[in-house]
Structure formats: structure tokens, C-alpha cells
């Protein structure tokens, strides 16, 4: 099977792109898929840290593109799964080191190497973002349920529309049901009403995520983590399965409206 290339982006920084990339990659690998994940955040790499592979880096994305190594030499095998690989970003260069067409060529080279290629986009709307979405078959936009993250996500979705890519799908990350109940946080419906794209998942706020980042063990590996469960569900939805949302005290009519959005 040739790979499906997915880019994870957001606009705003710090909303959970890298966490989502690592967790979706791990969740797909767990169910037997061949996955390559790619850190396109040149200069500010951290996908390697989140996956616990920072000590195994020899070559990076820029080395591949500039021809200093072969593609396979830059692919780091994950500690836990033989069919999960990481191509890290370069830390000492910046986003101008590569171009969208470089990324498209790389995407084509990876088509036969995996079932899924997941690209971690940098924050922002400039070159790094454009590089990351260039090869994508599908784009996942991550946002937090707060006004400024949603504003940036709206901008990004507009830019994706302008590039005439397939419409993006949305992940609402770090939803805190208690805060929503108190009226201190936007609810999922507010976010969707503004962004008006298909929802592919909602990940609840979970302390385990911070711990997992520090030890390099993505929460999708943790049976007890709710965020982990949410990421596992999203990976199943990427595969085409219909999985109901985790219980986060949603209003009845919201779930009903959503059931039409999961097609």
C-alpha cells in the first residue's frame, strides 16, 4: 500500500501538534501500520524528544534533502515498534533551508516506505508551514478551545483553502469539561461553529501528557490515559472506522449534530 501523507498543523504554537503527531504515529504503529513521522519544525525540533529518540539522531531532514545521506540513513527506528520510524528536523538550520518542492519530492520518496507519513508542522503561517503542507494528502488542524487558538486556526484553515488543498479536519485538544461546565472555557460546539470543518476528534486535558513528554513515552501507549484513548480513537478514525467520542459531558444535541460530521 502506498503511504497516505498527513500533516498536523495549527497556526498557534503550543496547542499540541507535536504531541498529536507522536501519539497518532504510535497509535497507528500499535495496530500494525507502517509509519514514518517527520519533524518539519527546522530549528526548533522536538518530535524526537517527545518520542524519546533524541539520543539516536545521526542524520536529519536537511541532510536528506541536501544529499548528504540516503533517506533510509535518516530514518530512526522507534524503540518500541519495528515499523515506526522518525526523520528528525535539523536543529542548527532554519526554515529557509528547504522548500515546498523539496518536501514534495521527499513525500514521493516515502510513499513506498510506509502506510502513513505524518508530518509535524511548525507554528506560524510562513515558509515552515508551507513546506509542511506541500506534500500532504490530508491536513489535520489542531486547536485548543480558547479564543486565540481558534482565531489562528481559522487563519490557517483559510490559507489551506487558498492553497486548494483538501479541506482540513479538526482536532480539539486539551478540552477541560469541568471548565466548560463553569463557563470558563469554550465548548466544542463554539469552536466548530466558527471553524466549520469536519471534526476528527476531541482530546481531553490530561496531566499524563506532560509526564509522557518528559520521559519520551507517548500517552497512546498508556491504557489508563484518557488523552491516550482519544488519540487511539483518532487513529482508528483515520483508518476509516467510526468510533464514538469519549464521554466529556457534551450536550445531547451536540453529539447528535456531530454524528453527521464523522462521515
Amino acid at each position, binding site marked *: 500500500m502506498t503511504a497516505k501523507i498527513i500533516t498536523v498543523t495549527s497556526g498557534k504554537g503550543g496547542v499540541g501538534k507535536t504531541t498529536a503527531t507522536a501519539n497518532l504515529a504510535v497509535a497507528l504503529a500499535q495496530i500494525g501500520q507502517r509509519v514514518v513521522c517527520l519533524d518539519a519544525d527546522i530549528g526548533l525540533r522536538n518530535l524526537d524528544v517527545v518520542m524519546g529518540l533524541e539520543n539516536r539522531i545521526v542524520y536529519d531532514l536537511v541532510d536528506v534533502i541536501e544529499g548528504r545521506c540516503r533517506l533510509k540513513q535518516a530514518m530512526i527506528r522507534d524503540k518500541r515498534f519495528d515499523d515506526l520510524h522518525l526523520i528528525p528536523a535539523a536543529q542548527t538550520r532554519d526554515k529557509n533551508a528547504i522548500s515546498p518542492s523539496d518536501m514534495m519530492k521527499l513525500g514521493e520518496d516515502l510513499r513506498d516506505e510506509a502506510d502513513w507519513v505524518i508530518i509535524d508542522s511548525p507554528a506560524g503561517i510562513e515558509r515552515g508551514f508551507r513546506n509542511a503542507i506541500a506534500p500532504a494528502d490530508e491536513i489535520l488542524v489542531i486547536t485548543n478551545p480558547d479564543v486565540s487558538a481558534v*482565531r*489562528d486556526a*481559522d487563519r490557517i484553515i*483559510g490559507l489551506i*483553502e487558498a492553497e486548494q488543498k483538501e479541506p482540513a479536519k479538526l482536532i480539539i485538544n486539551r478540552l477541560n469539561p469541568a471548565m466548560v461546565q463553569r463557563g470558563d472555557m469554550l465548548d466544542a460546539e463554539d469552536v466548530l461553529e466558527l471553524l*466549520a470543518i469536519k471534526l476528527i476528534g476531541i482530546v481531553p486535558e490530561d496531566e499524563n501528557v506532560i509526564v509522557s513528554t518528559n520521559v519520551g513515552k507517548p500517552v497512546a501507549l498508556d491504557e489508563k490515559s484518557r488523552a491516550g484513548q482519544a488519540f487511539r480513537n483518532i487513529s482508528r478514525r483515520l483508518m476509516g472506522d467510526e468510533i464514538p467520542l469519549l464521554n466529556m459531558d457534551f450536550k445531547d444535541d451536540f453529539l447528535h449534530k456531530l454524528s453527521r460530521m464523522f462521515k
Partner: protein
Amino acid sequence: MEKLEAFPIKGFREGLLVTMGEGDWQKNFDALMQQIDGRCEFFEGAKIAIDVGERKLRAVEVCKLRDKLADRNVTLFALLSQSPATEAVAETLGLSTKKSVLKVNEEDLPRALYDGESALMIKKTLRSGTSVKYSGTVIVDGDINPGAEVIASGSIYVWGKIKGTVHAGIEGSEKEIIAALEISTEKMRIANIAYRESKLKIKPKKKVCKVVIDGNSLRFVDWEQHKLIE
């Protein structure tokens, strides 16, 4: 009979204006009759004004014109001419002449029609970061999201929600309006007048309303009640 050139016809509220060509009166007369006969349904029961240019026409000629038209069930109500003699003849026979006909027409054009102005139609939601600037009126079939802006010299009509920034009448026209199915922004201006922002954290949502200039401020006009509110 040779086919003679047809004269241009323009429609007004009062009737039709036929503009004759130059040259021999009889030839023009025949041409006019032929034109009317050729399209008798169109002219049936019509009221027409004829512009005869600089011709000097005598009373008998004008009478014959009126009668022959009447035979075809066409009423001559005005004779326009640059010749004072012709005008005098026309007025004696009870026909309107240049000044009065045109005056009536211009004044009677309903004020709701603004022919010749342009409008931009946008059939999508304007996402954050989008900026639309247009000389004319803008119509949006979709929302204007926070972080998006529409700036127009005319009015702004939105079949959707205004959450972003809108500025109508940017060149100073105070008759322009902003209208939408829902307005939850306070970043609105018409001409030089800005909406006074409230101190509330959560901005109120107004449904199905217009915003207009009222004195020195912008006010909402409620659609249901047809009156200024808040």
C-alpha cells in the same frame, strides 16, 4: 417600399422617446410609420414623445403626425425640438415640449433605484486574516469571522454573522448601512462614525438587524420592530 432605418427608442416612465434622424421630414415621417407598423404589438396603446431635432415644423404637419399616430392607436404626448418655432407649435397643440417632459422623468425615478453602482458578491465565509476592500457595496453570503475585515465605500450586507471588522461608507457617505442576520462585533464604522464599544466582556449578539447613522453615533435598527434600539 424600401426598408427605412428604424429610429432609436428609449423607455421612460411617461412613455417612449423616439429620436428621429436628420433630413427630409416626409421621409422621416414615413419611416416612423413603417417602424410602428412593423411592430404594432409593441406600440399598441403606447404614449410616445418624438425628438425632431432642429426641424421647423408647421402646425399642420404636427397635426397630421398626431392623427396618423392616433390611427395606429399610439398617442403622441410630447414633441421635443431645438427649434423654438416647433416648440411653440407643439405647445399650442397641447403637447409637452423638451423641458417639462425631461424634468418630470428625472424627478420621478424612484429613489430606491441606484442604477450604475456596482456591488461585490462574496459567496463564502471570510476567515481570519482575510481583507476585502471594495469601491461599492459588498454582499457576503457567509460569515465574517473574527480577524477578517470588509471595507466598502457602499453598504455591507451579510447573509450570515458579522464577528469581524466592517467599515461601510469609507469615502464619507453617511447613507450607507451595515446589515446582517447576526451581529456580534463592535468593530463597526459607517463613514467617519465608529460604534461605541461597550465595556462588557461578552459582546451582545443582535439578530436580523441593520446598523445606521443616527446623529453622531451608530444605532441598531431592529428588523421586527422597525425602530432604533439600544
